[in-house]
């Protein structure tokens, strides 16, 4: 069973590795890169928010921190537009992680709705800071070193780095789910005070999870900035980003490993595709609205949980059919 499961992962990875050689149109390749970045972000977001139940809506603060780290450091070091800039991607993640610690120290003191509101408020502080400080370039944003790669294959290196980030995010999320740390996050989700009374050091556990999830999101932001070559405060510190990654996780299955991956791949790619295909930028919003209503209405726990429940029920039914005579025997004895 486990072997078969691993086989699916390998197959998915092979397809992902080959995909940019099948899709050669630069516009579609760009869609693929952004899809991978968003999927990595939502997987990472879910690793904390999904497991612990602390729905954070301020993750764009970390995405933007990663993006601005990429922009500021590459400019200050007078870097040339070469592949060397990729080394700044983990640095962007590190900056986001460091920023997440004080943010978490404040926000994680409160729970549920209050936590959601506090994270949104903190996010706006970041956006306002980026708009108003001089070193961030204000509303004009930052221009990054120009990368003189051929337009035809420009996105190829970005694609593989984004894929690496996604693999990292999935591995981390799966590792956490299997660890004692992950169990503690789940316990916090179900009953934080009870977990505390069973020796779980809830605050350090929450803060660690929060900072870890910020790391990947920061790397995503840094890679995005490098690819775009130009960043604006309202596009990297973007409230839509917060909502998007949360919705992608809810769509696929909040708190599951597969859910956010599925949600990210399906939603982000279709959103980008629709935006590119129909120049009308708001059409996708209408389609998305309909899609979400349908999912929330018929599969409130997300697609993955919906399918898993159906499969379990079917299996139980099949087993029950098989063991029917045995049950009767047991009942009579």
């Amino acid at each position, binding site marked *: 069973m486990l072997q078969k499961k691993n086989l699916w992962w390998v197959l998915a990875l092979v397809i992902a590795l080959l995909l940019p050689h099948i899709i050669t149109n630069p516009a579609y390749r760009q869609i693929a890169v952004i899809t991978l970045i968003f999927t990595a972000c939502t997987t990472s977001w879910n690793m904390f928010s999904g497991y612990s139940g602390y729905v954070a809506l301020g993750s764009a603060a970390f995405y933007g921190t990663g993006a601005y780290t990429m922009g500021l450091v590459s400019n200050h070091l007078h870097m040339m537009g070469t592949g060397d800039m990729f080394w700044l991607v983990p640095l962007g993640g590190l900056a986001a992680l460091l920023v997440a610690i004080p943010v978490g120290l404040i926000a994680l003191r409160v729970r549920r709705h209050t936590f959601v509101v506090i994270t949104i408020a903190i996010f706006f502080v970041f956006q306002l800071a980026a708009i108003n400080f001089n070193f961030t370039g204000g509303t004009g944003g930052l221009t990054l070193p120009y990368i003189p790669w051929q337009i035809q294959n420009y996105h190829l290196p970005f694609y593989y780095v984004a894929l690496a980030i996604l693999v990292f995010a999935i591995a981390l999320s799966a590792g956490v789910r299997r*660890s*004692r740390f992950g169990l503690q996050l789940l316990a916090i989700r179900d009953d934080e005070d*009870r977990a505390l009374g069973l020796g779980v050091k*809830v605050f350090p556990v929450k803060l660690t999870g929060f900072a870890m999830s910020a790391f990947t999101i920061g790397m995503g932001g840094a890679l995005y900035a490098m690819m775009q070559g130009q960043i604006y405060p309202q596009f990297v510190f973007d409230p839509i980003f917060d909502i998007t990654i949360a919705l992608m996780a809810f769509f696929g299955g909040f708190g599951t490993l597969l859910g956010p991956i599925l949600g990210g791949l399906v939603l982000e790619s279709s959103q980008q595709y629709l935006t590119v295909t129909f120049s009308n930028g708001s059409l996708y919003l209408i389609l998305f609205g309909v899609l979400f209503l349908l999912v929330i209405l018929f599969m409130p726990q997300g697609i993955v949980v919906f399918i898993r429940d159906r499969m379990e029920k079917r299996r139980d039914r099949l087993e029950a059919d098989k063991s029917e005579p045995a049950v009767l025997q047991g009942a009579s004895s």
Partner: protein
Amino acid sequence: MTTLLSAQGISKHFGGVKALELCSLDVQKGSITGLIGPNGSGKTTLFNVMTGYVKPDVGVVTFNGEDITRARPDKVFALGIGRTFQLTRIFARISVLENMLVATQREEGWLRGLTRSMSSKHELDAAMEWLDFVGIARLAKLPAGSLSYGQRKLLELAYVLVADPDVILLDEPAGGVNLTLINEIGEKIRMLNKSGKTFLIVEHNMEFVMSLCDSVTVMHQGTNLVTGTPSEVRSNPQVLDAYLGGGEEEDTIEEVANG
């Protein structure tokens, strides 16, 4: 006998409500101590103070002579004081076995959790053993949220036990549970007590308390009224006053019905 867990001169006010007023309680090592009293007399608040969930305004809590008045619940648990809640609290969306594993490593540092798997062979064995002890081992794989109320009570008892605490505080272990299960729980408590565990039990079921406890303390209006053996307490006029007299008519009816 030595005092294992002790609360001295505890006061706790919530706004104008004096939940605890200079309340003292000693739990002797190896005993089963009962804590009774009308509703609202401060029993659960005293539990919360002793386990770090509520900080008292005045007073000192000691465990093995160590001052734990200001310790957080996780620290209190790590020292060896386990508790259950009046309204049973379990982790509903993880499995019964995973519920057990949350409590297995009470003294482990928080960073260690990142680098180790959810359970070791040893911990799994211990978890299954305690589930077996309370009689719900066959439910180990089910989500804990699908357990019945009585099974949840047993699970809560089991996951407190798996961490091997020295003293266990039970808040109404027999509340809302059928008679057979009450006797079963009483039997488990007796067995554990013989093997060296100390118990402090809040309970409204008088029969349960009187048959089980070595020493019973009666609380009234936030303070400890009388302490003695079950028979001493039963015949004490002050206790009858507390239950039958002055201003607590509603409670009284319920108490009499339960008792």
